[in-house]
């Protein structure tokens, strides 16, 4: 017993140094070589940092493409989903309200055209992406609010579609980067 305890104590101390310190420091050293230096890749627009490439943000006005509903209001100090069950009546009411509000802001859209991701909260509350369908459906509203021709906004959306893993993975559009490009569109 005493011998086991002594071995345990010494082995624990050495392994804490190896696994808790040396290993993460090695990875941090590798991370220094990546974009963002291992502290997250920042996005710059008009000379100021406006966010992180991977972290979604809230867009509320008609002038911007909007991302998904978020249970933490896109404050990445924390993260969280709604954790609402599929049969929860309060939750279904909430989705209904989101649909109604979306239809008011996008009068040209039919209810059946709204893709589910625009009225359901993401898992992390920080989802940076929407699907191409989620962007196309907002083109008319954004173009009208900015008095831009619809075709040029639509082309901008097309340019921002990502097709990862040779097209096998879901297609995504990074909402922040789309909106930055939108601001630059004349």
């Amino acid at each position, binding site marked *: 017993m005493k011998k086991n305890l002594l071995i345990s104590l010494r082995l624990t101390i050495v392994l804490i140094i190896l696994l808790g310190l040396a290993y993460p420091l090695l990875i941090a050293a590798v991370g220094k070589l990546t974009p963002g230096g291992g502290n997250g890749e920042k996005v710059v627009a008009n000379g100021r940092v406006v966010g992180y490439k991977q972290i979604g943000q809230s867009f509320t006005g008609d002038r911007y493409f909007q991302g998904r509903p978020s249970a933490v209001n896109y404050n990445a100090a924390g993260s969280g989903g709604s954790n609402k069950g599929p049969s929860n009546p309060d939750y279904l009411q909430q989705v209904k309200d989101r649909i109604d509000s979306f239809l008011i802001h996008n009068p040209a859209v039919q209810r059946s055209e709204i893709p589910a991701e625009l009225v359901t909260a993401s898992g992390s509350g920080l*989802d940076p992406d929407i699907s191409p369908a989620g962007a196309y459906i907002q083109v008319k509203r954004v173009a009208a609010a900015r008095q831009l021709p619809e075709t040029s906004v639509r082309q901008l959306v097309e340019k921002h579609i990502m097709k990862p893993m040779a097209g096998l993975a879901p297609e995504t559009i990074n909402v922040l980067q789309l909106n930055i490009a939108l601001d630059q569109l004349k």
Partner: protein
Amino acid sequence: MTGEIMAVIATFLVTLLLAYPLGRYVARVYAGQKTITDFMAPLERLLYRISGIDPLQPMNWKQFLKAMLTINMLWLVYAMLMLIVQGKLPLNPDGNPGQTPDLAFNTAISFLVNCNLQHYSGETGLTYLTQLLVITFLQFVSAATGLAALIAVFNGLKHRTTQNLGNFWMLFVRSVTRILLPLCIIGAVLLAVNGTPSGFEGKDTITTLQGDTVQVSRGPAAGMIAIKHLGTNGGGWFGTNSAHPFENPNYFTGMLELVMQVLIPVAMIFALGFYINRRRLALIIFTVMTVGMLCLVIPNMLAETSGSPAIAQLGIQQPTGAMEGKEVRFGPAASAYWSVVTTIISTGSVNSMHDSSMPVAGLTQLLGMMINAFYGGCGVGLLNYLIYMIIAVFISGLMVGRTPELLGHKVEAREVKIAALVTLLSAFLVKAFTALAAYMVAHHPDMAWAVKPGNWLNNPSYHGFSEMLYEYTSANANNGSGFEGLGDNNPFWNITTGFVLILARFLPIIGPVAIVGLLANKKFIPESPGTLRVDSWTFGMVTFAVIIIINALSFFPALALGPLAEYFSMIK
């Protein structure tokens, strides 16, 4: 959609392609044969010398378990103390406070037992120091403990008659230096390159494009996320685990994390074949487990990709499937596969919020954890399967009227009693505690506790019951995922799940090691035409049937009250 399903199949195939050679390598490592990682030998000798370990000293099953339990006890005390005082220690750029004693009790046990039930959020509940020196450290050593215990069992099965199950310290150290650490370095580098933070800067404050001020949590997460998957731990750096865009930045990292969590459990099955030289047995076990996995994956994926019937009734299209609690970059197909893999393998990391899964998907997640032996956790999955095999051997023996045998050793009353106790224990822990919690919610909702029982649940009705059932099932399976709507950071949940965790970890390890220790002591009986061959397909099917029957008898009533009732209420 077809593309997404093909991507999932590709992910699984890549896992197999890597797991087979890894299994061969693992067998060579523990047998002490030449491998490509022999450059680690000086490091191992250094660890042995500093710690005073004689790696060649044989151990019988009792000595083995004593060594294992002693060091585990020490880790528990160390982890709990660190978590309570973390607020006053360095490497805390966000100024997070120490954990309350009941939360520290739960967290320390949870990571010690490879479960990683997290009743805190990583952004606010830990400091960088405890994330690394406590959490990451425990994720390595708890996985290595499971692997060492499994190799002890292999040793008992390998030899005709032996007292020696192998030296715990040597098996444990090699699990770290030869398997976990090298694989983790590869995985962590790939994550860091794809954008997972690895630096030590604290929370950042930014002004967004439309002018809001928000904060962004960061930290040296990449290394921890690698071991969280390779060690089938599952506890995340950030609150939402691998749904968080820093923890799992894109589809490639999603595949990588899926491969990493399945890799070692599958490799250990192949390793069994190479190590004890029974490849046919390994193939049969692998097949039974894979069929079991498919029985869970297919209904789950169908339910998730066809979308929520309740949302469809609101007139909304769900071309990609059910999206509540899911991330666009993964989509429902990959999220469905993940939710099954993480529950059968006892990882418990998530890339979507299971609380928002469709009822059928939730059912398969619960079943995965209840069975807990389709691949299963690092080392311990095969130990759980061995328990089912003992029961199957016993039942088959009764049917043909012979004394049951396992690989040349008589299985007698003592071994069957241990196996039966381990099996019954999990059903007892899950149902008794869920009943207690449900009783509190129903009859004492206004109890003046830290959080009133009436406020525990995030969803009403059947789904609320599922939240409680899931929590104890996850604790009992040492899984760690949750229906996270449950308000679980309060003394009731911290303490009750803490006890479930510790019982459900160590008894299922002690049981199989003891059984094999006892068996290996017995006289070896050479195979004869009357021997029950465990490496036959018939016996594989019997084992599968035993798994289904035991779990159906144990859990069907509870499942009927939760996900099944919810399913039927939704289709009307």
